[in-house]
């Protein structure tokens, strides 16, 4: 007769990387499926994590599944490494996995981000995990998840084109600011998460893998390396990124990147680089430190 101790594994108070093996196994399978069908939303169980829904629980689950002790992790919120929620997520990731923390895009192996793609070009050996509040690009035109799934299956995106056209007729331009619907690999329209329009071209034919995960809505999808990501645009009305090319960062003096506008007391504004890690490296280099700065996607304010 077997003893009880032979039938059971030694008790572990917490699994490595917090999530238990069954959750990780499901996520890995769904991630592979998402990579195999670029842009297609794959439902997953989306377990509860020790953070409130809507605070990056989808990104967190993906990152926790991919992390190992040799990983170097960077977490940004609205472009900043020092946002309170980014700091809290980064601390949690490092604590449960033993991964090293960084604010340097070039040094990270995995970058979890809320609503920005870093300005420095990401490499083949890096993964970008985007937090997604609303994975369904069709939600503005179709509230029912079940009906939207059917529309994706039929590649029926007519109503999306229609709302973009209506915006143009009403205001003279396409008003969609962030979450700009984009066609992936010529097949599925995805929401690239609320990244600014500035960042969407960075996903097109990128060297890195992008994983997008919505914890609350229980959907994940992927843009594999070297995959087409084309924002929906009309042939005679080209896609336009934010008009930030001429703005200058008041801290670093850099020009031609996505900026945060800071209102001033005198009624005007000044601008700061939204990518805080990039800004910090520029400042350190200016102060004489030997800092390596990667090539950027935009050069002189133009996507290269």
């Amino acid at each position, binding site marked *: 007769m077997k003893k009880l101790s032979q039938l059971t594994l030694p008790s572990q108070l917490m699994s490595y990387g*917090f999530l238990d093996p069954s959750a990780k196994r499901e996520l890995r399978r769904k991630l592979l499926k998402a990579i195999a069908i670029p842009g297609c939303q794959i439902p997953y169980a989306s377990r509860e994590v020790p953070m409130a*829904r809507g605070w990056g629980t989808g990104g967190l689950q993906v990152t926790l599944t991919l992390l190992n002790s040799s990983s170097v992790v960077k977490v940004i919120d609205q472009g900043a490494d020092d946002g309170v929620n980014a*700091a809290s997520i980064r601390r949690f990731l490092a604590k449960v996995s033993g991964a090293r923390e960084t604010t340097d895009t070039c040094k990270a192996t995995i970058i979890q981000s809320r609503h920005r793609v870093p300005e420095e070009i990401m490499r083949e050996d890096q993964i970008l995990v985007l937090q997604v509040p609303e994975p369904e690009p069709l939600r503005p035109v179709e509230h029912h*998840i*079940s009906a939207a799934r059917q529309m994706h299956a039929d590649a029926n995106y007519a109503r999306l084109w229609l709302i973009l056209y209506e915006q143009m007729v009403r205001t003279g331009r396409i008003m969609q600011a962030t979450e700009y619907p984009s066609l992936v690999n010529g097949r599925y329209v995805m929401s690239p998460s609320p990244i*600014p*329009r500035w960042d969407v071209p960075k996903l097109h034919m990128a060297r890195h893998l992008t994983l997008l995960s919505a914890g609350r809505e229980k959907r994940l999808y992927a843009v594999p390396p070297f995959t087409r990501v084309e924002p929906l645009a009309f042939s005679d009305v080209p896609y336009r990124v934010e008009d930030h090319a001429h703005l200058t960062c008041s801290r670093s003096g850099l020009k031609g990147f996505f900026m*945060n506008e800071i209102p001033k007391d005198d009624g005007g504004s000044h601008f700061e680089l939204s990518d805080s890690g990039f800004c910090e490296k520029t*400042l350190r280099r200016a102060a004489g430190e030997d800092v390596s700065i990667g090539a950027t996607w935009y050069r002189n304010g133009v996507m290269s």
Partner: protein
Amino acid sequence: MSYVAARGGEQAIEQSERLYRERLGTIDATRVDAIARSLPWLVDRIMGEASLYAPRLAALALAQSGGDLYEAVLLLRAWRTTQPRLAVAEPLRQDKLFTHRRISAAFKDIPGGQILGPTLDYSHRILRTDILDGAGLEPEPVEMSPEPAPPHQPSLASWQKAQGLVVDFERQDVPKQDIPDLTREPLLFPAGRAHRLQSLARADTGGLMALGYAVMRGYGPSHPTVNELRLVEADVEISHPRGTVFSAGRVRVSQAEVASKAGAETIDLGFCATLGWNEVKIIAGGTLDLNEPHATKGSPFEEEFFLSHTEPVEGAGFCQHFKLPHYVTFQSTLDAMRDARRKQAEMASQAAAEEPAE
């Protein structure tokens, strides 16, 4: 520079948590036990919403969150999801439930009898301010009935089925490992019956009440009658690897069956059950279940609407997330708005220039 800022951020997080905890004071096992003893209905409510039957852990979650129910439910759910699923219990059968309370509004009396059990339904809700002046509220001892109510009761629906009043659907024997489990699978629509009932079982009490109440007020076609409502203790029966079935303990369960009078020949039944004793939740949930087949597309009484929007962890979390900075999105919107204004102004000045002189 940014390092300082990062540390500053972490310090701010640390200190704001301290401010919160300062208000709660020292939390120890004594406080947890006092909560478990004095607030059994609240403990039951959050055990249902957490879908975790663990009264002491639920009391701990309440202590730790200072009674913020959404926080408490999240604490329990986040703990629960890391636990292994060791076994699947035997299905519960109505006539094997240890029944504390069981009533039907559909008949004056029912086979097995109406059993009031513990309830405040017929009490006068008078706030006992004298307690604040030092009086004690010692519960009066319950007088034993000479004839104790039978612990097990038949289900009213089985009588109705025998009469041909309720359709007797064929019982589906699903292998235990194949029973869908919402805690490990995403909810898709249309949801399977199992997923719908599981989702109702862990739904937010207040959310279900609001939507269920709206249906009852006439926004849905079927006015509910409580066919049978039960508060029970159920044995969690587990099969030992050698084949013996044994009870691993008892859990409090509530279940409601609500009937519609709308059917022409048979009575339609809606059903809702949850862990813990929580009557409002199951009556509202049963009413939503009952009305769902007749819900018009796009109404709040469609399963997709009410299940999606009564998820306490998801709903509360999303409400909270709007406190996070959204300045990148805002910046992007401003850019489009300013450009649109510029365009409108250009068009207006162009139109003015083209206006022929009088």
